[in-house]
């Protein structure tokens, strides 16, 4: 065996075992996203792991009132959901958001319940993966307050959230769920959240792209594994990029 090929062999072996060690460490420290497998798994994992290491406690940019966009945009297309239309007609007075799963006290919140919890108002940018963006003032209850009220069990690792629109289900890890800027938003620019932006309540997490900010929230579930929830879709699970 020539010295060069021996050197290559050693380098290849070191590289392979280095990757295996890195994968084990990533798993141990919660740096592996649910979509870490498949063709795009390496890219998804590198993005999620590096952002978790660099941005775990960072705060999304907040802007001045003068920066609020005069022309916010919502790409919502009209939909016909009887339960929604009925609730809209009564000013969402009967709207409920159920919180279940790995919690000590499963609870169903009305809008009034949410408004009675501590509120937070922040001016952030919403950026869509398509490329457009706008800045608005968002008001809501920090998701961490809701999770505190239902007493999340220690084994919970993800929050799954559902829209009244079928097939709109997303999930986030506890780092994002407990982040101070993650809101169940019910207000926008000083008024109630408009229908196009997800009335009465949307998920608002300004450190991720628009598609994680699900509108018309009806239910939250706390779970310890996304195996049965995460469908290998075409969009990456972590959308901080």
């Amino acid at each position: 065996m020539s010295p060069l090929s021996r050197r290559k062999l050693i380098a290849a072996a070191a590289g392979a075992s280095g990757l295996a060690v890195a994968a084990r460490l990533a798993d141990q420290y919660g740096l592996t996203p649910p979509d870490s497998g498949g063709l795009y798994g390496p890219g998804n994992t590198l993005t999620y792991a590096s952002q978790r290491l660099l941005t775990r406690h960072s705060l999304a940019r907040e802007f001045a009132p003068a920066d609020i966009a005069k022309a916010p945009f919502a790409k919502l297309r009209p939909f016909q959901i009887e339960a929604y239309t009925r609730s809209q007609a009564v000013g969402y007075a009967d709207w409920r958001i159920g919180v279940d799963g790995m919690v000590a006290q499963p609870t169903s919140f009305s809008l009034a319940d949410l408004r009675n919890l501590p509120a937070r108002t922040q001016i952030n940018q919403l950026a869509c993966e398509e490329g457009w963006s706008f800045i608005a003032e968002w008001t809501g209850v920090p998701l961490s307050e809701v999770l505190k009220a239902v007493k999340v069990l220690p084994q919970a690792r993800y929050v799954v959230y559902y829209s009244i629109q079928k097939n709109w289900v997303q999930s986030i890890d506890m780092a994002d769920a407990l982040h101070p800027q993650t809101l169940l938003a019910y207000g926008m620019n000083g008024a109630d959240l408009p229908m196009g932006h997800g009335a009465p309540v949307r998920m608002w997490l300004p450190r991720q792209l628009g598609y994680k900010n699900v509108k018309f929230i009806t239910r939250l579930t706390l779970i310890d594994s996304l195996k049965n929830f995460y469908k290998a879709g075409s969009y990456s699970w972590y959308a901080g990029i």
Partner: protein
Amino acid sequence: MADDAPRHSLLVRTTHWLSTVCVFALLLSGFEIVVSHPRFYWGNTGNPNTPSLFDIPIPASRPWVNTGYSYVLPDQNGWSRNLHFEAAWLIIFTGLVYVIASLLNRHFRKNLLPAAEPRAYNNIQRLAYLSVIFVLLPLAIWTGLAMSPGIVSAYPLLVTVLGGTQSARTIHFAVSMLLVLFLFVHIVMVCRTGFRNLMRAMITGHS
């Protein structure tokens, strides 16, 4: 001696072809992403309700973009975004290996820094390669990171010095167009100065 010393080192050949794969993946997926919103803006706000800086005269893959076309292209953003970021990671690692090794083995000094009596590459070529390696690709990575809401939450300066998310996106697009221009000239030059010979040199090391 001439037979032993390759025209291109193994490192140059490997990183060249890895970068080639990455750049084509980035350009293809980047184009598909642009198709979802072929309008460009400046600042932090830019959307179908605001005037644009300029539009690319192509149809869009989303119905809410007013392009003047009566039809909408299929949405390809899912795989495009995944491929874009995977290729971005690979070209970052490839570029790091290439730059660090080329500093250590003096590849930059010997072959790419403009010289009084340049060998192999003339000074215009040298400046073209250096501007791709040290200006365009780093700028593409920077403006790409500046569009990431997660990254700018930790490093807001990345986007504020550019003027905002939409400014970063517009510069990202301009940089990619300059890379396309470089690629076009690069390929034309290879074809005109002996395609087979130069390809053999970049694959085997020897012309």
